[in-house]
C-alpha cells in the first residue's frame, strides 16, 4: 500500500519559505522596546514548525487511501472533542469569553478547531466523492451540509466566529469544486445574503427580486423554491432581532468594521493602529525588527492576528508583495494538485485545503487594512500558535501525498 513517490518540491519549498518568513516575523514581533512575553515565543514556533514538517513528511510518505481510511474515526473524534470543549473549554487571556482551548489539568493543549478544519475538509471530500454526479438540488446537499453543519454549530457556540467563517468558506469552495452549479450555490447562500442586506430595506428588496428571478430561472423543486423564499423573508425580518441577541463584543466588531474611528480607544483601536503601522511602512519599510509602532507597543496582537501589519511596517510594500506572492503560489499550486489528483477524494481534499487557506489569508490580511471584519482568524504559517502551525503543515502533508499520487507522477493511475 505504501508507495515511494516523487515529492512535490514547489509546494514543499513554498510552504517552507512562508513558514521561515513567518518565524522571522514572529521573532520580530517579540522585539519591542519593553520586552514582553512575546519575545521568546519564536523559539517554540520553530519547534512547532519542525514538528509540523516532520508530520507532513510522515503523511507525505503514507497514502491517500490511508488518509481516507482514518477520516471517519478522526471526524468522530473531532466532534467528540469539540462537544467536550463546550463543557470543559478554557478561554485565553484576551478572549476569555471563548471556550476554544483544549486544556487538561490547566495546561492548554491547543485549539481543536484548527485540526477540525482539516478533518472536516477530508470528511467533506469523502462524502462528496461518493457521488458520481454533483448535487443538482438543495435536498441532495443534506449529507455534506450535515458534515460541515455539526462542527460549525459547535464552533459557533464556543463562540468562535472566525473559525466558523472558515467552515463556510470550505463548504462553498468544495461544493464549487465538486461541480455544483453556481445558481445553486447562490441560492444556498441567499438566506445569509438576505441577513446581511436586511439592514437596508432597499438593498434587501433589490436582492429579493434577484432571488425570485433566479428561482424562476433555475427552477428548483417547488418545495425548495418556497423554502428558499420563506427563508429569505425570515432572515431579512429577524435579522434586527438577531442583532440584539449578539454579544456586545460581537456587535462592536461588526460596528467597528463599518467605522473603525467610531471608538478608537476600544475595538477600533486595533484596526487603526494596524493601518497606521502598515501605512507608515511605505515602500521599503522601517527595516526588519525596527517597526516603531510595533516596538512601542501600539500594534496589538502583533504576533498573532495582526502579524501581517508587522510585515507591512518593517518590510514595506516590497515585503507585503513578496508574502502575498508566496501565498498566491501556494494556493495556485494547491489548485493544480486538486485538478491533477487521480481520484475525487484527493482532488476534493486538495481543493478544500486550498479554500481553507484562502479564507484565512484573505480574512486575516484584509482585516489588517480594515477590508474585513475583525474575526480573530490567524494567518497560516505566520501567526504564532502551535496547533495552528501543526495543522497548516498537516495540510501540506496531505497535499504532498495527493500530489505524489496525482497525474504526472510515478504512482498516478490516470496519467
Amino acid at each position, binding site marked *: 500500500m505504501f508507495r515511494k513517490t516523487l515529492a512535490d518540491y514547489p509546494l514543499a519549498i513554498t510552504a517552507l519559505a512562508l513558514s521561515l518568513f513567518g518565524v522571522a516575523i514572529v521573532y520580530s514581533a517579540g522585539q519591542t522596546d519593553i520586552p514582553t512575553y512575546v519575545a521568546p515565543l519564536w523559539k517554540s514556533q520553530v519547534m512547532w514548525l519542525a514538528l509540523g514538517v516532520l508530520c507532513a513528511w510522515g503523511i507525505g510518505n503514507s497514502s491517500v487511501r490511508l488518509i481516507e481510511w482514518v477520516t471517519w474515526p478522526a471526524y468522530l473524534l473531532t466532534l467528540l472533542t469539540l462537544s467536550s470543549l463546550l463543557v470543559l473549554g478554557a478561554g485565553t487571556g484576551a478572549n476569555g469569553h471563548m471556550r476554544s482551548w483544549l486544556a487538561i489539568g490547566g495546561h492548554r493543549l491547543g485549539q481543536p478547531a484548527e485540526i477540525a478544519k482539516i478533518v472536516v475538509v477530508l470528511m467533506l471530500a469523502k462524502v462528496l466523492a461518493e457521488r458520481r454526479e454533483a448535487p443538482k438540488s438543495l435536498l441532495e446537499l443534506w449529507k455534506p451540509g450535515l458534515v460541515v453543519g455539526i462542527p460549525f454549530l459547535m464552533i459557533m457556540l464556543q463562540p468562535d466566529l472566525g473559525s466558523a467563517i472558515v467552515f463556510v468558506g470550505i463548504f462553498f469552495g468544495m461544493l464549487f469544486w465538486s461541480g455544483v452549479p453556481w445558481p445553486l450555490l447562490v441560492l444556498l447562500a441567499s438566506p445569509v445574503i438576505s441577513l446581511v442586506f436586511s439592514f437596508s430595506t432597499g438593498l434587501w428588496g433589490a436582492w429579493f427580486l434577484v432571488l425570485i428571478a433566479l428561482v424562476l430561472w433555475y427552477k428548483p423543486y417547488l418545495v425548495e423554491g418556497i423554502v428558499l423564499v420563506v427563508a429569505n423573508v425570515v432572515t431579512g425580518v429577524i435579522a434586527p432581532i438577531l442583532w440584539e441577541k449578539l454579544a456586545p463584543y460581537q456587535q462592536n466588531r461588526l460596528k467597528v468594521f463599518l467605522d473603525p474611528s467610531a471608538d478608537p480607544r476600544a475595538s477600533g483601536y486595533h484596526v487603526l493602529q494596524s493601518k*497606521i503601522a502598515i501605512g507608515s511602512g511605505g515602500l521599503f519599510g522601517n527595516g526588519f525588527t525596527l517597526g516603531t509602532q510595533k516596538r512601542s507597543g501600539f500594534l496589538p496582537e502583533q504576533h498573532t492576528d495582526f502579524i501581517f501589519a508587522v510585515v507591512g511596517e518593517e518590510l514595506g510594500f516590497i515585503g507585503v508583495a513578496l508574502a502575498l506572492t508566496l501565498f*498566491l503560489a501556494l494556493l495556485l499550486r494547491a489548485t493544480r494538485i486538486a485538478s491533477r489528483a487521480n481520484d475525487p477524494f484527493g482532488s476534493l481534499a486538495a481543493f478544500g485545503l486550498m479554500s481553507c487557506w484562502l479564507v484565512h489569508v484573505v480574512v486575516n490580511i484584509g482585516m489588517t487594512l480594515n477590508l474585513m471584519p475583525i474575526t480573530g482568524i490567524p494567518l497560516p504559517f505566520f501567526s504564532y500558535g502551535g496547533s495552528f502551525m501543526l495543522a497548516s503543515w498537516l495540510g501540506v502533508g496531505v497535499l504532498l501525498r495527493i500530489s505524489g499520487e496525482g497525474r504526472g507522477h510515478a504512482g498516478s493511475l490516470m496519467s
Partner: protein
Amino acid sequence: MSVHPNDIARRSRIARLALSAVILSLVGAFFNAQVLQHDRYKLQSQENRLRALPLPAPRGIIYDRYGNIIAENLPGYAVSVLPVNVDSLKSSLQHLSSVITLTPEQVDAAVRRFRRDPNRPTLIISDASMSVVSVLEEHRINFPRLIIQSVPKRFYPDGPAVASFVGYTGEVTDADLNSPAYQGYKPGQLVGKGGIEKQYEKILRGREGVRYDEVDARGRQVRQATPRLDLNPEPAPPLYTNIDLDLQRYVAGVFGDSLVGGAIAMDPRDGGVLALYSAPSYDVNKFTGGIPVDYWKTLLADDRRPLVNKVTQGRYPPGSTFKLATAVTGLEDGIVTLDDHMPEPCTGGFQYGNRYFKCWDKKGHGSISLGRAIEVSCDVYFYQLGLKIGLSKMIAGGVSLDMREKTGIDLPDEKRALFPYAVDYYNKTYGARGWSNAVTLNLSIGQGENSQTVVNMAKFYTALATDGNAATPEIVKQTPVKTRIFKLDQQQMDGLRTALAGVIGQGTAQSARIEGIMLAGKTGTAQTGKRVNGVELNHAWFVGFAPADKPTIVVAVMLEYGGHGGRAAHVASSIISHYLKVAPVTAVQSEG
C-alpha cells in the same frame, strides 16, 4: 463529484482566476495604503508615539523700587500621571495612595483636570515635598505613567508682610477656564489670584514650553524625542513695583498682631504706592500649591476678616478726615475763607431744629477760624459750614472730589467708595419726607451716607499735598496719572497745609509729632454705631503727609474699632518718620 477532465479544467481555470484576482486586489490595497497614502500614515505614526509634556514657565519676578525681591520662583516638584481614561486614572490614584497620602480633594481635582483635558498629563500634586518625590522615585517602576517634573514654585520671601497687595498663585479654576478671559489656559496651570499676581497675570505668566517624549502604547517613556521638537518655556519678564519693601515690612511690624485695619503710603507726586498693608495678614506662602483646607477655614472663621483687603475693599465712614472735603468745597465755591468765623461759636454743641448736635469736645472751641477748626477738628464749625454750603452743593463737591469713585489702583476687586450721587439719593432711599436737612450736618463731618476706602482717602490727600491734582495709586511702575479734582489758589493751598500741619503741631494729633519734619494730616474718629459695654467703638483714622511744605509721602491709616484718631496718627507718624529716616516724638496721647 463530476470528474470529467473538461469540467475539472474549467473549474480549475475559474479558481485560478479568482485566486489571482483576490490576491491582486489585496496587493492593490496595500499599494494604496503603503505607497499612495504613506505620508498620512507616517505622520499619524509619529503623532501616535510622541507625548507632549508641558513645561511650565517661571512667572515674572516681582521687585520693589530698590530691586529687592517681593516674589520669586523656587524649584519645586509636580507629580502628574498620563491616564488613558477616568477609570485608569482612578486606579492609578488608588495605587499611589498605597505609598503616599492623597486627600479626597486631590483625587477629585485630578479627575476634574483629566475630564477637562484628557490629552494633557493630569496633575496630581502641584507642589510635592521632597519626601513625597523620593518615595515616588523609589516606587517608580510600579507607576510607569507617572511624571515627576521639576517646576518653578512661587515664593514670597516676606510672606505675610506683602500678602495685602501681592496676592498669590493657584490653579486655574473650572469657572476661570469657562470664561473668555482665560482663553488658552489649561487645567492644572497656575494663575495669579488676587493682588498684582492677578492684576498683571498677562505679564507675569510667561509662555509654557513643551517637550516631546517618545512613549510606548502604555504611556511609558521610551526616550526623549529629538531636541528639534523641544520648545523651551519662556520666562516672564520681571515686574518692577513702586513698593518700598523696607517700609512695607516696617508697616507690617507696626500693625503687629494686635492692630486691625489698613494703611497705605503713597508718593503724592506720582501716585507710586510705597506700602500697602491690611491687618491682620496671612501667610501667602501657605497658599502656594493649593491652600490647605484647615488654614483656609481658619482665615474664613476669623472675625477680623483677614481675607478682606482693608485698604481697597473695606469701606468705613471717613469721620473728620472728610472735613477737608467740606473745607475744599466751601473754599472752591467761595463760600468761606480760611479766616472766616461761623455765626455760632462752639460751646460743645449745636442746636439744629429740634436736635442737638454735639461737638466731640464738650468744653467747646469758641469762635474760631476755618484753619483753627481744621486743627482742632471742631464739629460745630463744620456743621454750620455744611449748612452754609447747602446739601446739594455739599454732595456735588464730594462727587467732584471722587468720593464715589474707585481710585483705579492696580489691584483687582477694588471697592467703590459710597457717597450720595445727588439730593435725589435721599428721596429715593428714605422717601421725599423721610429725611431732614440734618443729613447735611452729618455729611459735613464725614458721617452719614458716606463710606470711604482707605485708598480713596489717601488719593484725596495727594491732591491736598500737591496742587489739587489727585494721583492714581500705582503699585507697579508706570506712567503717573494725575487728575485735577479741585482748584484753589496758592494761598488757599498753603493755608490748608498750614492748618493740617497745625493738627499735629497744636491740634488733635500732637502725639504724632516728628522731630525735624513738619507733618500735616487730619485725624478721624468715625462713629460705627457698634457698642461694647455701653462705649461706642470708633474707627480711628489718620490721613496725612510730610514734609508739610514739600510732601513726598502721603499716608492713610485706618484702625478698625481703633478708638480715637490719635492712635491712627501715631501709627502714621511712625511710618512717615521711618520713611523719612527721622525719629518721631512720642508724646502723651491728647484727647481730640
